[in-house]
């Protein structure tokens, strides 16, 4: 059996701090529920990225663990660059989002180089931004509301090439300078980054479907994905959006 969609989950045993498995589960199930055959490939340190990957998910880890995967990830600059070139969708969440940018400047001034798939850079702040987020997102022609929880020390500023994923209605989001203020996440070609946990995809199925639709483009061309009975998703989303702080 060949899969309709190969989903590469990068370092699932290392970048797993904030329910990141939920994002992979959401993508996998929502494609399967529509009849697509999905193969989830755990890509560990030293493993080659599957060449047929249509979707890549990079989660977040603690500072120590992000230091551990950092060098392995940098060895993948060309591999990941090629993947995006051929239309593979890459989602980075929290630490994974920061990795997608040019660089991360830690609190002590040291620099970690990023993959450069998003024209953003992140500077560690003196305090952590922790709390609930509500934002209005626009992604490849889809408009939807995002709810989630943020927990990050980094402040991310967007360069000219990257577009914000969303504007923040509650919470902080990117927290960067200039036009990055009041925005959350970033998009550039098929690379998408966000700070939101929740996890973000089960709680915001429109976001999950936008990513899937793009990743499945070789199969479905421009046809939209068929809708799913999302009552549970809607209930969880609206319950989360009603929370105040």
């Amino acid at each position, binding site marked *: 059996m060949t899969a309709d969609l190969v989903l590469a989950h990068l370092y699932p045993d290392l970048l797993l701090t904030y*329910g990141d498995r939920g994002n992979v589960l959401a993508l996998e199930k929502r494609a399967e529920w529509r009849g697509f055959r999905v193969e989830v490939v755990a890509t*560990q340190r030293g493993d080659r990225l599957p060449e047929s990957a249509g979707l890549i998910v990079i989660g977040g880890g603690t500072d120590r663990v992000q230091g551990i995967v950092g060098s392995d990830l940098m060895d993948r600059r060309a591999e990941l660059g090629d993947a995006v070139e051929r239309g593979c969708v890459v989602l980075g969440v929290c630490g994974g989002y920061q990795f997608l940018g040019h660089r991360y400047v830690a609190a002590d001034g040291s620099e970690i180089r990023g993959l450069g798939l998003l024209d953003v850079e992140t500077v560690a702040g003196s305090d952590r931004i922790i*709390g609930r987020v509500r934002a209005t997102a626009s992604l490849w022609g889809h408009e939807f509301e995002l709810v989630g*929880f943020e927990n990050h020390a980094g402040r991310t500023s967007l360069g000219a090439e990257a577009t914000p994923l969303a504007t923040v209605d509650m919470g902080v989001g990117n927290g960067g300078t200039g036009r990055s203020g009041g925005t959350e996440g970033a998009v550039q070609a098929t690379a998408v980054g966000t700070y939101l946990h929740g996890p973000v995809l089960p*709680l915001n199925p429109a976001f999950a479907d936008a990513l899937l639709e793009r990743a499945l483009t070789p199969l479905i061309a421009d046809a939209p994905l068929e809708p799913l009975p999302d009552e549970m998703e809607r209930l969880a989303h609206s319950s989360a959006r009603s929370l105040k702080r």
Partner: protein
Amino acid sequence: MKFNHVVQRLRACASSLAVRRDALIDALMLVGARCVARLIRLLRMGAGTSLPGRVVDRLRPGLIERRASALPGGVVLVSGTNGKTTTAAMLRAILRAAGHDVVANESGANMTGGIASAFVLDSHHGTVAVLEADEAVLPSLTRRLHPRLMILTNVFRDQLDRFGEPERVVELLGAAARALPPGAGLIVNADDPLLWEATREAGPVGFGVRTSWNGSGTGSLDGASADGEPAVCPACSGPVRYASRTIGHLGPARCPACGWHSPEPEVKGTVLAESGVGRMVLEEDEWVVTLPLGGLHNAYNAMAALAAAGALGVRHDDALRALAHFHPRFGRAEEFDHHSRRLWLGLIKNPAGTGAVSRSVAADPSVGAVVIAVNDLDADGRDVSWIWDAEFEGLVEAGIPLVASGRRAEDVALRLKYAGQDMTPTEHEPLRAIEVASARCKPGQVVAVLATYTAMLDARRRLLSSRVASVEDRGPGDLAA
């Protein structure tokens, strides 16, 4: 010469008066604080488990330290992410059976105020203190109370909106271990690589758990399961391999790259048989003991308590006997009867513990339905993303009716949908959720309630105010029958 003698006598007299005056003030403070605690309870302003201690600590600095150092058996501190309350309760049961009068923060008030209150409210001259301490206050408490023994259970990611990262907790526990007074004992989970390595220099005694069945309780032997911490070598950061896995990242590990390996635990329990939430057969050294509670996490708690009892000079067979008669309480494997339905309450608060509890519930033939109640208040952790790292798949596969409850009932129902159960009934209020679950049970079956900290407090409070008593007088190991 004579004059000097008189001055000396006068000085001695004055200082003994001062000592007596200090003792008198101490005594008055304690009486006052106990009255305040009683008043708080009388006026139903709370449990009175934290405020009296905080007030005394403020008004009379040094009193808590004097109370602690006056205990002939010394102070034992228990900390770590999971198992603090149960491990401390098990050790108290062992010590009480050995004739000790134990000073305790039994309700789990484990910040400085709660611990100060334990000393303040102890009016019958305890001989030894066994106190669970929150990870954040452990280093300062260690410096203040000069414990005779410290038990560190494990570190899992928990309350990340409070601690930021689990590495921070490992640092805190390591700092506390280094702050122990000379000659103090230290007992650490030998199956937790990062925690062990952070405390190794302090010379800990290790405890661990194995299973008689092959392989792992969770995940694969290389790479972490989603509910554990990253399986990396604490020495070189390379990937580690496990000889066996129990919960999350716990288990004997070895690093193929640099040769680092987990120590062989000095106190090691092998679980021979597990039959749900109410019974577990453990082999330890040449003994076989039946514990009246299930779950591999409780095997760890029992081994930690056993190692501590040994360090405190309790005879091994006496300690095992006390464990076999252990009576769990306060929302940790606690039982209630509610409208002729037996309830079993289990605390969940992070992925690893939830997985362990869920597995023992799913394996229990007496459980007829399960309520999963998740709150997102400060004490629970405001970010509930962690429920997606917790393994609920086993409960769904077992086909047990599930009900979602708590402030984030909808998140629980959604999590269960992606675990394979399409529609889960949701009831925010715990007693109503219990009633919905109960209606799906056969007569004689148990409703298991898995709840986060404040959801558990809420459920207990409602159960107690609806005049159901916690089930007392229970024989050992007869729960699942």
